[in-house]
């Protein structure tokens, strides 16, 4: 069968299945289960109306259960088993993990990532959004800054490997050091600070995202409030920090938390740049070390990450909802 045919059949079956499901399930409800027979017409209509929303919700609930609830429960169950998955070992995976110094390092590093990356990307995004707003070539600048968003994390890491390369001919940092007569260094091997060199990559990628959202928010601020502030005697800094920023605070929080959630998921950068060596591991890359070798421990790490992300996520969704009102 040609791929074309396959596609068409998939579409027909998919759409037809959906239509068929909604049509038939409602038909069965109205004609067979609660038919509006004379006698208890009103009661049956009311009952059918109570059931109907669930008919529409069922496909979504089913998919959510299959692809979200089951994996979560399944992962948790898996994390209570040993390497092969045969023996139940209770919380042993968790206790070994917490006493592992590599985990502690990854946890601490991740903590720093969460502090630095969302703050850095949001701040730079806000700065760029404000500065490019009045410029004629602002949109070109914005497109350029947004472009890294289109690059995969691994691709971005490869680009930054060149920036950080420890030969002056390739890496810009060492080129500068060479220019002032210093010996080349590998910045990815400087303990502690190498983490920040990795964070720069994610900030570089995410600034574009923050910029686009915050730029739209800044445009939504009523111009009169800015003019009123100017008449009230505010200088450009005061207009920005006391009038504009507070008015888009909700959006800033959404951007901040969205990037925070992302930070807790990204392993690619660490994986591609240092492979987690030189004490640069973060939780997702630490998890990758165990994946496919000891799924019990890997799922335990995954569970810890999920528990950390959860409150940020709840806050994020709440803020986003508030914004929509």
């Amino acid at each position, binding site marked *: 069968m040609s791929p074309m045919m396959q596609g068409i059949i998939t579409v027909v079956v998919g759409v037809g299945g959906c239509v068929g499901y909604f049509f038939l399930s409602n038909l069965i409800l109205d004609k067979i289960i609660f038919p509006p027979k004379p006698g208890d017409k009103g009661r049956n209509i009311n009952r059918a109306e109570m059931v109907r929303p669930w008919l529409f919700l069922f496909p979504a609930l089913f998919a959510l259960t299959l692809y979200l609830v089951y994996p979560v429960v399944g992962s948790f169950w898996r994390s209570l088993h040993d390497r092969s998955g045969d023996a139940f070992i209770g919380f042993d995976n968790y206790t070994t993990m917490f006493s592992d110094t590599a985990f502690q390092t990854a946890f601490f590093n991740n903590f720093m990532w969460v502090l630095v990356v969302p703050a850095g990307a949001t701040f730079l995004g806000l700065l760029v959004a404000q500065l490019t707003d009045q410029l004629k070539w602002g949109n070109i600048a914005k497109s350029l800054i947004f472009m890294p968003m289109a690059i995969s994390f691994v691709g971005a890491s490869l680009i930054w490997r060149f920036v950080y390369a420890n030969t002056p001919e390739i890496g810009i940092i060492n080129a500068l050091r060479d220019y002032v007569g210093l010996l080349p260094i590998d910045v990815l091997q400087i303990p502690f600070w190498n983490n920040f060199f990795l964070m720069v990559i994610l900030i570089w990628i995410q600034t574009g995202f923050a910029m686009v959202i915050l730029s739209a928010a800044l445009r939504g601020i*009523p111009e*009169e409030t800015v003019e*009123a502030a*100017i*008449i*009230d*005697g505010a200088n450009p800094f005061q207009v920005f920090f*006391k009038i504009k920023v*507070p*008015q888009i605070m909700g959006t800033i929080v959404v951007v901040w938390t969205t990037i925070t959630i992302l930070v807790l998921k990204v392993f690619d950068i660490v994986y591609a740049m240092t492979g987690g060596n030189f004490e640069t591991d973060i939780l997702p890359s630490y998890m990758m070390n165990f994946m496919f070798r000891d799924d019990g421990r890997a799922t335990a790490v995954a569970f810890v990450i999920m528990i950390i992300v959860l409150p940020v996520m709840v806050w994020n969704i709440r803020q986003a909802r508030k914004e929509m009102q």
Partner: protein
Amino acid sequence: MANVKLTDVAKTYGGTVNVLNNINLDIKTGELIVFVGPSGCGKSTLLRMIAGLEKITGGVLEIDGEEMNDVPPAQRGIAMVFQSYALYPHMTVRDNMAFALKLAKKTPTEIDEAVNRAAKVLQLDEYLDRLPKALSGGQRQRVAIGRSIVRDPKVYLFDEPLSNLDASLRVATRIEIAQLKESMPNSTMIYVTHDQVEAMTLASRIVVLANKGIAQVGSPLELYETPENEFVAQFIGSPAMNLLPGEVVSTGAVTGVKVDTGAGTIMANIPTKDSDMGLRVNVGIRPEDMTQTDADNYAFESTVAITEKLGEVTQIYFEQPDKDQNAVIGKLPGIRSGTRGQTMRMTAVPEKLHLFADGVSLLYRG
């Protein structure tokens, strides 16, 4: 507590698009000046130029004798109330009013005193700790006014402050502004509106803007009784003044005119020179000045096309022989029923007639 003087002020956008020209205006201390004009006539632009939000591209603006062209808005001694209130949504009423004073580095006691005083005047005491979104439209506009009062400016600028309010609130707030002005006899106010009633009730003097310039400046009744040109004549008063083409048939202290749509000679209390004999003029009669007559000398005779009974008055729209002309409208006191389809003869007393030649009133000829 200052006068505002504009000399040959002009505004051009991008060096080519000219929106205002030769604006000369001397606003005295304590006056409430209203800018009116059709939309797009530049009245808001002129106000924003005085505020410093738009650059003045020609001429000189002086406040209190000092040239202000390049002085930043905050140092001009002005305060502005915007149509959309422009309250800072994230600040309480108190902070909204205190913002300018905080920026000016006033002491907390000074700020408190000023805010409380303004809140008392505007009856906002109870709402000081609320956010703007918890206030009604009228209260928000009072906060906006309060925000300007606390700064104790030399000149208050109002940019259509009542346009966002509903009809009944507009009347109430208009009266509040009038009372506010009365309580501050020395403060100068400039007020932009497109609403004639606001202009007529609030202004010490009205500035009518049209065609990139000033059409006439004068007290509300001056503009109503002796408009300088046809534009002002038709802009002030509602419905607009009827303009009927005619010819001067007798001159002197009182001028006789023969209206094309009428018969005989009707007299106007306007002096003319002998040389004006036979001059083509437009005879202006306000709808409310129209009276019905049986005499042989009248200004207008036509069939009634539509009547609008408003209770206190009845507005009568006459059939128009020439479709290109604006409808002639009469406003007769009380309820007049059964007039539709009738032919009516209309005229007006000599002191209520206006004569225009080439768009300019004969009273104001050089």
